[in-house]
Each structure stands twice: as structure tokens, then as C-alpha cells.
């Protein structure tokens, strides 16, 4: 066990260098063979592609996501690969732009001949790439893209989401919001597709629980100073519910605090606002925020498992190497790590050998049960057959002393929403 840990420590910088300077996984491995490479002899590697925003506005998430992917792949290779074959990773940067992402995906599919894809961060880029998976009949495990439509109106036979989405979070969160925090809510949301659909999901669920959404404030994406928008917020209600992420989320939380609004009202929202990578920039201004998230970098129950400890330690060590400020892993690290492992399970179950076996792989992934453990430190999850959407345990948390503390764990069967997808 400790030997394995050591290998991981040594291997990490090598892989990182590959990422930095290596053209593709295939070329890079020839230049710098990883320590475990010899164990596989002539076995042909599985090639897994990953599209991530490594530059541009979404770079933060893309880089932490990639850490999860590399961690999972290193671990798989260390433990003997999949079906005795090693896994090669091919990474492409989409610059946070859909045209570049689309081109990069085409390259991975036609040039690098990837066998499957795990990744995708920004929803618009995930959507732009959907036709590629369909045209080339490749399995696509989404790593981060949160847009509801990916597994509802725009669902696709080849695409799987092994983590939660907003409607399920709303179902999980609404009872607490209405029951414990207050009946009347005002929603502040990032005014674009994801924010709008998430706002609608929460409005529906809050009202279902007997609460009321008395108003909403949209904030244009990329607004550095949100004060003109949020200083309108006034009136008789109990809580503010925020839907935002990344820098926009940080600006929002900072400025809500600055204007005293988080003191005046209960303050809750999507966990993306208080994501671990956002916390350093929020300081004490996020104290008392109640959020929902599938994963938190803590070791409190129910996350007090050896599997999570291992995941957390290694991810933290790896993240330190990409960012000198030493962030903790976020849900993007976790979901990408688990997406690779879900794919591994599917490959093992189906005996998938290459692209032509994709139909078998899809059949194996549909309805896949994932059990809490080293592969899935977040917990059990089920990948639903009807819409390829996973359901999993949600964590309600509050930020205290700059750290998330778990208030309640919502079991996965309390997050269910009916499927709304029909595969073409």
C-alpha cells in the first residue's frame, strides 16, 4: 500500500510534465516512459481523450478537473490497467471556446483515435461537441457540464453524466430550504442558459415544498461589479438563493456581503459559489452560506471513509503542483476522477476492446451501479438507463471558519426526478 503511494508521488510530476510539453499521450509516453509502463509489455493501450478548458475564463475548473482525470488514470495503470491494457490520456485545450473545442474533439477522434472521451467543462462546448460522438459512435462521459438539457431535451445515446444535475439538486435541497431556513425566497442567478434553467428548477421545487419565490434578480455573465443589480434587492422575504459559479460567483458573494445582504437574509445557494477553489478569494465573507454540493473536500461523515481520505490527500498534493496557493480538490476533480472509473467499470463489464465495441459499452454503462470505495470516494451512484443521468448522494453544508461543514446528507433516492429524455 505504502509502495503504491510512493509510486503515485513520483509519478505525478512526470505526468504533469507530459501534460505541459507532450503533444499527445502516445508521443509523450515514448519520450518518457512512466514507471509502470514496463508491466504491460506489448499490450495496446486504451486511448482516452479529455477536452478541458486549460486557458481562458474557465481555466480554473479545467485544471482541477484534469487533476482528477490524471489521478484516476495513474491509479488504473498502477493497478494493472483495464483488462490488462494500460490507459493513455490525450488532453486537448478548448480555450473555453466552442469552436476550438469542437476542432480539438475532431482531432482526438480522427487523429489520435481515442476509444472514448471523458471530460468537457463548459456546457456550451459539451453541446457543440455532441454531434461528434454521435457521428463517430464514441462513448462520452461528461466530466463537469451541468446544463440540464444534456440529459433531457438534448440527450444523446452516446453521452453519460455520472454526476448530479440541477433538477436533482433542487429536489434534494428544497425541503431543507423551506423547512429549516424560510418560506419566502429571492433568487439571484447568472443570467444565461444554465442560471435560468436552474432558477426554474429551484422555483418549482421550493413551491412544491410549500415555499414561495417572491422575486428574482439576474446578473449578466462576466459582471465584475454586481452592486447595481443586487442593491435593488429589498423587501419581505426570508432568504436569498444564489445561482452562480467561478469568478462571477465570487464577485456575487463578496458584494452581497459588502452590502450587508447576507446578514439581513438567510443566504443559501448552489455549492458552486462556495467551491473549494473559490474559498480563498472569499475569505470570511462567505461565512454562514448554506449550499448543496455532491462533493466537499472534508472528512466529516458521511465522507469519513478511507477511500475519501486517500482521494483527498493525493488530489491535494497534485493540486499544489499546478497552483502555488495549494487549493483543495473541488467537485470537478471528484466527478472527473469518478467518470474515468465509471468508464473503467463499463469497459470491464462489456469486454470493450475498441471503438467498434461502443454499443456493448453503452449497454454496460446503462443502469450501471457504482459502489462507494476507492473508485468512487464520493459515494454510491446509479447511472439511469433512460437518460444516462446519474443520481447520487447530495451534501448540504454551511461554511464556518472558512470551511464547509456538512449539515445533512441527502440519500440518492431522495434526489430523483423523472427522466425527460428520448434517444433518437
Amino acid at each position, binding site marked *: 500500500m505504502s509502495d503504491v503511494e510512493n509510486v503515485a508521488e513520483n509519478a505525478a510530476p512526470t505526468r504533469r510534465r507530459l501534460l505541459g510539453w507532450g503533444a499527445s499521450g502516445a508521443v509523450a509516453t515514448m519520450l518518457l516512459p512512466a514507471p509502470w509502463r514496463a508491466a504491460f509489455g506489448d499490450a495496446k493501450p486504451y486511448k482516452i481523450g479529455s477536452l478541458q478548458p486549460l486557458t481562458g475564463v474557465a481555466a480554473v475548473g*479545467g485544471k482541477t478537473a484534469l487533476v482528477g482525470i490524471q489521478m484516476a488514470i495513474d491509479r488504473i495503470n498502477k493497478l494493472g490497467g483495464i483488462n490488462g491494457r494500460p490507459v493513455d490520456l490525450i488532453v486537448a485545450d478548448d480555450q473555453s471556446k466552442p469552436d476550438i473545442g469542437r476542432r480539438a474533439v475532431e482531432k482526438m477522434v480522427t487523429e489520435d483515435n481515442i476509444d472514448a472521451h471523458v471530460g468537457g467543462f463548459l456546457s456550451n462546448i459539451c453541446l457543440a461537441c455532441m454531434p461528434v460522438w454521435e457521428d463517430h459512435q464514441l462513448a462520452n462521459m461528461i466530466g463537469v457540464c451541468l446544463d440540464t438539457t444534456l440529459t433531457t431535451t438534448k440527450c444523446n445515446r452516446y453521452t453519460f453524466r455520472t454526476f448530479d444535475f440541477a433538477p436533482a439538486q433542487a429536489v434534494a435541497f428544497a425541503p431543507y430550504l423551506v423547512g429549516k431556513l424560510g418560506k419566502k425566497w429571492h433568487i439571484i442567478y447568472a*443570467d444565461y442558459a444554465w442560471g435560468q434553467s436552474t432558477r426554474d428548477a429551484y422555483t418549482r421545487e421550493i413551491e412544491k415544498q410549500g415555499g414561495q419565490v417572491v422575486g428574482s434578480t439576474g446578473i449578466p455573465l*462576466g459582471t465584475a461589479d454586481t452592486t447595481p443589480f443586487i*442593491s435593488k434587492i429589498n423587501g419581505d422575504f426570508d432568504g436569498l438563493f444564489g445561482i452562480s459559479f467561478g469568478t462571477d460567483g465570487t464577485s456575487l458573494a463578496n458584494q452581497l456581503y459588502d*452590502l450587508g445582504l447576507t446578514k439581513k437574509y438567510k443566504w443559501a445557494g448552489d455549492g458552486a459559489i462556495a467551491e473549494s477553489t*473559490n474559498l480563498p478569494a472569499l*475569505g470570511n465573507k462567505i461565512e454562514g452560506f448554506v449550499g448543496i454540493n455532491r462533493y466537499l473536500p472534508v472528512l466529516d461523515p458521511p465522507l469519513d471513509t478511507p477511500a475519501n481520505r486517500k482521494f483527498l490527500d493525493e488530489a491535494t498534493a497534485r493540486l499544489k503542483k499546478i*497552483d502555488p496557493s495549494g487549493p483543495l480538490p473541488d467537485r470537478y476533480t471528484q466527478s472527473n476522477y469518478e467518470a474515468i472509473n465509471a468508464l473503467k467499470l463499463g469497459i470491464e463489464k462489456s469486454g470493450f476492446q475498441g471503438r467498434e465495441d461502443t454499443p456493448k459499452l453503452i449497454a454496460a454503462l446503462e443502469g450501471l451501479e457504482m459502489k462507494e470505495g476507492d473508485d468512487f470516494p464520493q459515494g454510491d451512484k446509479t447511472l439511469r438507463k433512460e437518460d444516462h443521468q446519474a443520481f447520487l448522494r447530495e451534501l448540504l453544508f454551511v461554511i464556518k471558519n472558512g470551511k464547509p461543514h456538512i449539515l445533512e446528507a441527502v440519500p440518492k433516492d431522495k434526489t430523483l426526478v423523472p427522466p425527460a429524455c428520448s434517444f433518437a
Partner: protein
Amino acid sequence: MAISLQQILIQTVNGVVTGMILALVASGLTLIFGIMDIVNFAHGELFMLGAYVGVLTLAAAGSFWLALLSAMVAIALLGALIYVTTLRPLLGRDPLTTILATFGLSLILQNYALWQFGPVARKIAEPISGHFTLFYLDYPWYRVVIALIAGAMIFALWMFLKFGTWGIWIRATTQDRVMAQAMGIPVPLVLATVFAIGSGMAGASGVLFGPLTAVDHAMGLDWILKVFIVVVVGGMGNLAGSIVAAIFISLLEAYASLWVSPAQAVIVSFVVLILTLLFRPTGLFATATR
């Protein structure tokens, strides 16, 4: 819904505060444009790098004010370096080439910051944490302080331009670069200085604005378009005009967000810009100042 007087007053305060920050960022840009015909597309990146210098200084020395100063100096030096290496060869060519070169620079600087500082956003703690009551809001003093500091810095710049020898040289160079040279003014040095001052202003604004949001490699992007609008509405190269325009546009957007859907409030400033260009292409406040 009826708009209360309270809300209008609050938005007035917001508009003025946001406007002053905007004015500070814009002042550097308009100075650079007015004097050297350089449309500096990398201005937002200088703003961002200034914030990072602030983060680093704050971590090392613990003083916000020292951070502000060191960001100003460091980014001014960087500005001088950029000018000498990249922009001086373009002097006298179509201003278009300066847009393109600075666009390339912004790519370099943004990705350099990502590489050097990592992707995770950093924080600059505000030096003043008190609040006062503004109707139904707790309003942070720091915002008022930023507006005042921004005002003071712009005033200092104005005094410098108005009374100092360098100020006269700079203004003479703005109006007629060739004649300035013939009058013995060291124009190349003046231009490098102006670029350095403009950059330094951007760097300082980054530190001042930092506490309101987060510091990351992409933070300059949110500014660049709005700052350009301000510079044009104010009359390119017209310092006083940009300040008035910055406050004017911020107020307008703040009021607009009371009525129309917020995302469309920005269209209001676009419309102002286009009307300005159509009817007073030299800037809305051209005759009043300069």
C-alpha cells in the same frame, strides 16, 4: 413595480462609485490613446497583473497601501518595457496595428499570469472593513474610499498634466508630436513615460478593485469593452471627458437596471455610445473640457 426614491438614491451612489473605478481604469487608456494613438487592448491585462502584484505584496509585506504603490510602480515599469519593445516600432503606423499588437500582448500576458500564478482566484483583503447604513442597505466604507482614492489619483494626474513641465510636454506631444519634437521635447521619452503612467494607473486600479471581487487571470476581460466605451464617449484622449463619461455611463446603467432586464442594461451604454458617435463623434463632453 414602482421605483422608490430610496432605490434611485442608492443607484446614484452605486453609479458614482462604479464610475470612479471605471474612470481610473479609463484614464490610463485615454491618456495612452490621446497622446500616442495607441489603442491598448492589453489594458485589462495590465489591470489584472496589477492586482496580482498587489496580492503578492500583500502576502509578503501585509500592507494594502504598500501593495497599491508597488503595483503602480511595477506595472508602470512593465508598461515602459512593453512600449519600448513592442509599440515603439509601430509609431506612426496605422492605429489598427497597435490594436493588433496589443491584442497579441494580451494573449501573452493573460496566459503568462495563468502559468505563473495558477488558475485559482486570489483575494486582496480590503484595508477598511466598516459599513454605514444607506436606507435598507449596509454600505461598505471601502467602496466610498475607492471612489475617493480613484478621484484623488485622477486629480493628481490632472495636476501633473496641468502644471508640471512634463505635463506641458505631454500635452504638447498630444497636440502635435512633430512640432513638440522640433521644440526640443524628448518625444520618445515622453511617450514611454505616458505609456508607463497609463499602465501604472491600470495596475493601481487592479489593486483597488481587487477586494470587491477575486483576482484571476481573466479579470481584465470584464473591463476592456466597458472602458473602451467610456473612452470613446468621453472623447478619445480627453481625460476630463472620460471621467464624466465613466460616471455618466455607470449611473445610466445603474438606473437602467431598475427598469429593464439586467443583462440588457448594458445595451443602454451601447446605445449611448452609438448616439455619441453619430452626433458628437469627438466625444460627448468635447467642448466642455480639455
